[in-house]
């Protein structure tokens, strides 16, 4: 056992010295994820509000003005302009000045008075799918509300749904996105740090020298993982602090449990960094490979899109992405106050992935004696 990890201690000590010797790199490594947290944390808000809306009211009646009032009163729409012709209405849409257009026909009021169904045209800009869906729902809601008001004697609807949002009652985007963002930011930072550190040794020829010493492959790898794992852990604590006290995202579960359960995630991303370092011959190549992990981790991990609604193939891929499991742990503990019993599967999967990545890297490293 000792032989398998031979050389771990001197490598680890040397690596810490490298880190301390280069405070600029250390500073940026720690600072950049924090800056990104601030950028994305404040920028990302998926709650759609105040969609610019253009009104083309041909009816110009009390009834039509009441309908426009309803649109204006909802938080979803914001009346951006009123136009007097269909062309002007389409122009406003095409130029992007309005995302929604409401056209009230000249016979709107008359149809209502005759007890017929009065139709209203609502045009929705489909170029932004999240806006489109919400605008359609909200305009249906406005129409329903107006219709009910016209039923005599009906002061309140017969059925009322009272939604109660658990765990994130204000449905703040920050609460949902920042826990996921932590996993993505940590991953890219750690992969880059460890992969570059190993590939640098390749470029400078020190790796060749190390291979001539009795240092075992696992000793070298674990020796490198300890310092960069420690840096990643420090960064995690900093980001969590910023999340809690600057973005005011409450942590409902145990912070200690959260930190412990994320250790296997650190192990996995360190392992991925090692695998990348065995494939890349130059620091530039390592950088490219590390960046290649970012998009799948963002889009296929459930960070932005629900994995449950993905096509089967992509759902399969999402199971192979470590961030998927880290996000389960982060959201589970931070938002839902989940316990170990709720989340242990994620920890198990990450542990297996991490060990597999490290063994894969160690094997490639031994084979590359010829490299």
């Amino acid at each position, binding site marked *: 056992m000792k032989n398998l990890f*031979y*050389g771990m*201690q*001197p*490598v680890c*000590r*040397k690596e810490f*010295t*490298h880190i301390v*010797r*280069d405070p600029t790199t250390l500073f940026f490594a720690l600072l950049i994820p924090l800056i990104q947290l601030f950028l994305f944390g404040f920028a990302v808000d998926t709650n759609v509000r105040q969609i610019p809306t253009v009104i083309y009211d041909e009816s110009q009646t009390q009834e039509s003005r009441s309908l426009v009032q309803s649109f204006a009163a909802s938080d979803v729409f914001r009346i951006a302009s009123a136009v007097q012709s269909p062309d002007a209405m389409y122009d406003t849409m095409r130029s992007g000045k309005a995302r929604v257009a409401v056209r009230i026909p000249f016979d709107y009021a008359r149809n209502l008075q005759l007890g017929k169904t009065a139709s209203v045209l609502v045009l929705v800009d489909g170029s932004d799918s999240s806006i489109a869906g919400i605008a359609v729902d909200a305009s249906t809601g406005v129409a329903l509300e107006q219709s009910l008001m016209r039923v005599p004697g009906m002061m309140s609807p017969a059925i009322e749904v009272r939604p109660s949002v658990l765990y994130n009652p204000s449905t703040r985007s920050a609460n949902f996105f920042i826990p996921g963002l932590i996993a993505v930011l940590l991953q890219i930072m750690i992969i880059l740090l460890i992969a570059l550190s190993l590939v640098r040794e390749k470029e*400078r*020829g*020190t790796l*060749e*020298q*190390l*291979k*001539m*010493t*009795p*240092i075992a492959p696992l000793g070298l790898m674990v020796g490198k993982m300890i310092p960069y794992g420690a840096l990643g852990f420090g960064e995690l604590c900093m980001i969590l602090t910023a999340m809690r006290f600057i973005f005011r995202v409450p942590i409902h579960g145990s912070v200690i449990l959260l930190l412990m359960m994320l250790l296997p995630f650190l192990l996995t991303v360190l392992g991925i960094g090692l695998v990348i370092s065995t494939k890349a011959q130059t620091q530039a190549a390592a950088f490219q490979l590390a960046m290649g992990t970012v998009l799948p981790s963002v889009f296929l991990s459930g960070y932005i899109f629900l994995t449950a609604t993905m096509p089967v193939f992509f759902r399969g891929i999402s199971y192979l992405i470590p961030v998927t499991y880290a996000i389960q742990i982060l959201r589970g503990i931070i938002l839902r106050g989940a316990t170990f019993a709720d989340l242990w599967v994620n920890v198990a999967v990450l542990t297996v992935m991490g060990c597999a990545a490290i063994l894969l890297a160690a094997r490639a490293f031994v084979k590359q*004696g*010829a490299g």
Partner: protein
Amino acid sequence: MSAASAVIHAENLKIQFGDFVAVDDVSFEIQKGELFGFLGPNGSGKTTIIRALCGLIPLTSGSATILGMDVRQHAKDIKRHVGYMSQKFGLYEDLTVAENLNFYAAAYGLTGQPAKARIEELLELTGLRPYLNRRVSQLSGGWKQRLALACAIIHSPEVVFLDEPTAGIDPVARRSLWDLFFQLSGQGVTFFVTTHYMDEAERCGRLGYIYMSKLIALGTIGDLQKLPDANPAGTSRLEIATLDASKLLVELRKAKGVREATIFGREIHALVETDAIEALKAQYPQLTIRTIDASLEDIFVTLTYAIMAETK
């Protein structure tokens, strides 16, 4: 000089990467305390042989032992008895001299008092003591090489492989590094040195010349000078003193019976068919022409041409 007493023993080494044969049927023996020089153009297989002897790459066929240990079975044990210094130094530039020494000592399992004592010894040997706390990036090429050597022999290896150890350093630093090699070799350390420099090759007790993956010459300088291939039958080596060497060189290369001609300062060394010498002397009566022994460079050039002619 039996196989058993040889420190390095290589027999019919063959190393292949896919279809490419990097080392082809190479055999040699190196005795304890020898300073063995290994020459050959870039890409001829020198570094590959070192890496194979250290167990970093597998032999395709053939066998090799170091200190009696088979490189196939005992790669790990061999590492503890072998030092290696490459042309790339293998030093950490952002660490200090002391930190590099401490790291490599620990890498070989040397810690505490024994490590301290060994580092003291090496500082004495290499004269690095004044630079102990300086970062490697601030050292000159010569001092870097000395430090690289100190790191390579920190575990007191019996065998040291030096892969172009003096590439790119100045002649003074080169000479003092070679003095170090001789000093260690005198203490019984066996050296296997690859080099491009003929003056360095001449310092080696014995030489091997590898070309196109094959070992084409092996022996002392005296042995090599007597090689039939280096002195093709019916030819002589001439030294021709002239005032306009470059002009004469062009003429000589066209002249009948001249196989090779090259400039050495103000003289031309030529390999000339013996029956053509008289004609040459008649053609250039004003020049001093005398017969000489082949220099090391002459030998290698002639051998290389011979192989090139064969492969054509």
